[in-house]
Structure formats: C-alpha cells, structure tokens
C-alpha cells in the first residue's frame, strides 16, 4: 500500500494552534507551566507532553513585516535516524510511511532524541536513574491506522494541514508552490520531498527554510557513522584480537613442542 504524508501549507496557517491543542487532547498530554517570554509562542519547545506546536517567526523584509508560523513535529523520515539508532525497535517504520512508536519497547536510551536531525523525539528521564520513555508525534498512529486523520490535520481550521497519500500530497504541494511563485512569493518551496529520503511530513514554505528554523540540508549526521562505521569496526577489532590470540596460542604451542623436543633430543 502507498505511503501517507502530512502536508503543512504554511501559506495558509493562521497560527491558531488548534493542532497544538488537538494533539494534546487526543493523546492525553498534560499542559506545562509557561510564561510569556515576549512572544505568542508557547510552550517554548517540544517536550514529552508537547508533540506538536507552532513556532512563531517574525521576519522583517522589504515589503514589510511577515509573521511566519511553523507547525513542528516528527518529520517521519524515510531515512529515519531514530529508527537506525533505536536499539529496541520501539521506533519502527510503519508500512504507511510514518515512524511508529511502541513505548512498551522503549528503554529510554534517548539515542533517537540525540541523533534526530530535527531534534524531535524528547526524553524526559529521571536525571539519576535515566529511567524514562521517549515521546514524539506518531502521526496519531492509532487514528491513521483506523481510517482517521491525525488529530492535527483534522482540526486545522484553515485547511493548512493536509493528510493523505504521499504522492498526492506532493503533487498538491508542488502545485501550491507554483501558485505561490506566480503570486510573487519567489522563495516558496516544497520541503521534505527528498530530504532524508523523503519526509512523511512535508511543508509548503513561503520563505527559505532557515527563516522557519528548519535545516536546509538535514543529514543523519553521525548516526550513519556510528551505525555503519563504529559498530562494525568494533566487531572487527574484537574479532581480530581473538584471531591474534588464537594464532598466538598455536604459535606458542608449536614452540613449546619444539623446545620440549629439542630438550629431549639434547
């Protein structure tokens, strides 16, 4: 079956934060204590109890001020670093194209949180024992595998969040970007078509990704190095050592036999 994707059209987002609250409502996530820090934006970051939120970016340009809103959350990468580094398979590629999370399997190692190029998964663990479970947007894995839209997509008042077949989402995104460019938004682009093998959460951006705080060229960073370099290297090093020791044992036995023989001969 085909992959699904979210498509977030930032040119339509009103920053109402319906998605932010609907996510909490469906997933039973608690509110956190916040203060106004000179912005509409709150909570100030994703967290164990905030899986999606709107980041507000005020940008001054030649044509006046712009207020850009970006819905943050799991990018559902095809080349998913979190899945690669997860030792427990708590994070897995789901057939529908998102990264599912089974908290029962998670042991709280937090590698996914640290290796994610978008810093999406969050671990709120006991500082001493390290005990905790990873959290992240699962694309409402219970809803989408039961024929429903994710809570955020369903609740979006402005039709800024689409959900559906990824190829169709991509076509919609490209068409929208063409429209925006024709309307004078020369920086409009699709984000997520090819990034990390293609994201299951794509954006239509009005401005450059950096203006929304998105990495221009997200990469798995050291995750590949770790998984594909260091670990095999470790096995090789240990294997070679054992091999060396084996040779050594054989060699000394041969020498010992020779020396015994020499003594006998003497």
């Amino acid at each position: 079956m085909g992959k699904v994707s979210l498509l977030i059209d930032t040119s339509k987002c009103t920053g109402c934060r319906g998605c932010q609250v609907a996510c909490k409502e469906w997933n039973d996530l608690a509110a956190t204590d916040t203060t106004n820090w000179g912005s509409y934006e709150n909570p100030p970051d994703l967290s164990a109890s905030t899986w999606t939120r709107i980041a507000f970016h005020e940008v001054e340009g030649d044509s006046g001020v712009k207020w850009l809103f970006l819905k943050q959350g799991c990018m559902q990468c095809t080349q998913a670093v979190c899945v690669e580094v997860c030792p427990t398979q708590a994070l897995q590629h789901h057939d529908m194209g998102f990264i599912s999370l089974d908290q029962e399997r998670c042991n709280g190692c937090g590698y996914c949180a640290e290796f994610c190029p978008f810093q999406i998964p969050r671990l709120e663990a006991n500082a001493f024992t390290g005990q905790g479970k990873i959290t992240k947007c699962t694309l409402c894995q219970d809803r989408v595998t039961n024929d429903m839209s994710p809570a955020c997509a369903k609740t979006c008042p402005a039709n800024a969040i689409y959900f559906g077949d990824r190829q169709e989402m991509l076509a919609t995104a490209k068409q929208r970007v063409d429209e925006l460019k024709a309307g004078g938004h020369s920086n409009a682009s699709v984000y997520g078509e090819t990034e990390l093998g293609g994201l299951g959460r794509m954006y239509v951006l009005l401005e450059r990704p950096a203006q929304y705080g998105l990495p221009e060229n997200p990469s798995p960073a050291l995750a590949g190095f770790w998984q594909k370099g260091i670990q095999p290297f470790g096995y090789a090093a240990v294997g070679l050592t054992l091999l060396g020791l084996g040779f050594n044992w054989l060699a000394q036995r041969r020498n010992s036999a020779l020396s015994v023989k020499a003594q006998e001969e003497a």
Partner: protein
Amino acid sequence: MCAMRVSRRDFLKASGIATGSLLLPTSAALAAGEVPRFPLRKKVGEVTTICTYCAVGCGQVVGTLAGEVVNIEGDPDHPINQGALCSKGAASLQIINNPKRLTKVLYRAPGASDWEEKDWDWALDRIAQNIKATRDANWIEKTAEGKTVNRTEGIAFVGGSQNTNEECYLWVKALRAMGLVYIEHQARI
C-alpha cells in the same frame, strides 16, 4: 436523552473531507489487514453539539464513556467547520473535566470573608425572597407626571450570551414579568 447518533461509517466518511478533501488510505486496504493497526485511544464521539466559544457555530462530536466525557472533536459532517476546531474548541474537553468547575452552591453572607456551601433549596428560596423584597421596595408604579410605568429599577440583570435560546427566552419572560428594566448582556459590550 435524545441524542443524535453519528454512525461510525458517516464519521469516517466525512473525516476525509475534514482534511481538505483529501485522502485517506483506502479503507479496503486497511480492512484487508495489510498494515499493523493500533487500537484507538478513546471513543471518538457519538453525541453532537455546537462549540461553546465563538459564534461561528462549529459542530462537535462528544465521546462519552460511563457518564464521563472522554473526547470532544470537530463534527466532520458539519458544513461550516467540517471537523475542524481552533485551539479553544479543541480544548473543550477541559471545560467538562476540570477541577475548577463549581459543583456546589456557594453562599457568601454579608461581610463574610469566605464562601460556605449551601443546598439548592435554601439558596433558591432565599433568592426568591430577595427578589420579591427588593422588587416590592423599589417599585415605580407611576412617574411624576402620572404615567403608569410599573417597573423596578432596583434589580438589574446581565447575561445570556452563554445560554441557549430557550434559556434566554425563559429568563426574558420571567424578568419582564417581574418588571425589570435593567436587562443587559454581552451584546451591549
């Protein structure tokens, strides 16, 4: 209770519309069990209502379990919001399940520094007595020029925009019958 039941089929059918007319994975494929499913966290909703915030009048579905509300989300069949809700509407569940909700009649005696709990009967009787006493003591039957006006300016009323039409109507009817003229509400301010 006479409640509009939303069939699951209708709900699912319409939830596609709610996402900007797009495009759920075909239910056939899912029904065939091709992908792992996760059980739904909660009941979506079976009773319809209208959001209690602004006057767009968005439809909501309310999911209940054992007499408690477990979920409120947008009504996908509703032509205005098509399943959508803003941050306030999406937070509606916390209106119902909220420790700050009043659950007792509270009374503050003149000069008292705190509330005390009372029962309804006591409070309602006392309110009715107050209304009568104040109305009768502040009754204007005629103006200085002798025009019959039959009103009281001693009692004022504000409110209603949070109420249903039927509630507003009964209040208006009762208040005017009691001779009140200071009747105002949110529409003025």
